[in-house]
């Protein structure tokens, strides 16, 4: 005959009899295991004892605290509702007032803006460049005063002259 140890019986204790029928049937026939189960049951029952027995003052205090919080919640709900109503009334009156003021000092209807017909800007074709318009910068009035200074270089050939002119300036 197979006997059950405490570990097996632990499961039997927590589950329902139907869940561990073989164990329960064995316990019915085996006095040794039944006694072991009884001991385990007793120990677990002892271990599960919760001391929730409190003096009456504890429950009274707890009840008072709950009712105080309930009252506070009611007061808050009332004040919140009142605040909400006041805010809604303020917003409504603001918009209504705004509408009245707008109607009172309504700006005069604007005259239609006369349409100005602007002539389309025609872009003139660029004037042909005449040969007389092309002038040598060296011949400009600003540089005329320096002609004497650089005249001695005039014997230098043209291409070189241009370079020298540039460098001397």
């Amino acid at each position, binding site marked *: 005959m197979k006997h059950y140890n*405490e570990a097996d019986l632990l499961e039997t204790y927590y589950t329902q009899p139907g869940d561990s029928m073989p164990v329960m049937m064995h316990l019915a026939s085996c006095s040794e295991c039944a006694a072991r189960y009884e*001991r385990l049951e007793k120990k677990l029952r*002892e271990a599960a004892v919760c001391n929730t027995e409190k003096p009456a003052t504890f429950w009274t205090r*707890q009840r008072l605290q709950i009712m105080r919080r309930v009252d506070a919640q009611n007061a808050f709900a009332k004040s919140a509702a009142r605040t909400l109503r006041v805010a809604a009334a303020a917003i409504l009156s603001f918009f209504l007032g705004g509408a009245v003021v707008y109607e009172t000092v309504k700006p005069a209807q604007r005259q239609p803006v006369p349409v100005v017909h602007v002539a389309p800007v025609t872009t003139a074709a660029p004037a042909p460049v005449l040969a007389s318009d092309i002038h040598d910068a060296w011949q400009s009035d600003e540089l005329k005063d320096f002609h004497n200074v650089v005249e001695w270089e005039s014997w230098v050939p043209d291409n070189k002259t241009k370079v020298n002119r540039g460098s001397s300036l």
Partner: protein
Amino acid sequence: MAVQRVVGTVATFRVNPITETAPSDQELIARTLGGDGSAFAILVERFQRKIYRVAYAIVRDDTEADTITQDTFIQAYTHLARFQGRSELETWLTRIAINRSRDWLRRRKFVSLFSRDDDSEDREYVIEPVDDRPDAERQLMSHQLRAAILRAERTLSSQQKIIFRLRHYENHSLEEIAELLGLRSGTVRAHLFRAIHKVRKELAEWVTMREVSDETL
């Protein structure tokens, strides 16, 4: 001449016996919703012990159980209009208390990740012998078993812990637990089995050690 003797009529008054029956939960709810604060106070008085016991069974802490009890009633008061009476008020309140206790367990688990002070469950509990016999050894065993169970419970998930504690401390049936948690009975059974296996593994050493000494008791 027949004399009709009028003996008289006895006036009968139907007297309704004054019954001192306590108002029903539904009646008190209706009165509370009508603004009668004293009706809610009666409801609190009626269920506060039960709610406290359930909260304490789960959180295993006096102060927290007290806070959870208060919060449960405040939440119930706030949402009382939504209570449709499909279940008993007691069941509804117990459900709220369990949910709040579960939140507390999760919060504490989260906090314990960042602190090393997670030995709150290692506190020594007062040993209450079930009978009057001064039996030091039995008390010690009970104390050891209690400590071992608390250690074992640490390995359980929140859901397993709640189910195990409701079974262990409150002695609720699996069907009752299923109803309170809004789960199917099979799910509760599966959770409980897993919890018991973990507890059993944790208690294995204690069990083998005790087996020897038990035989002598």
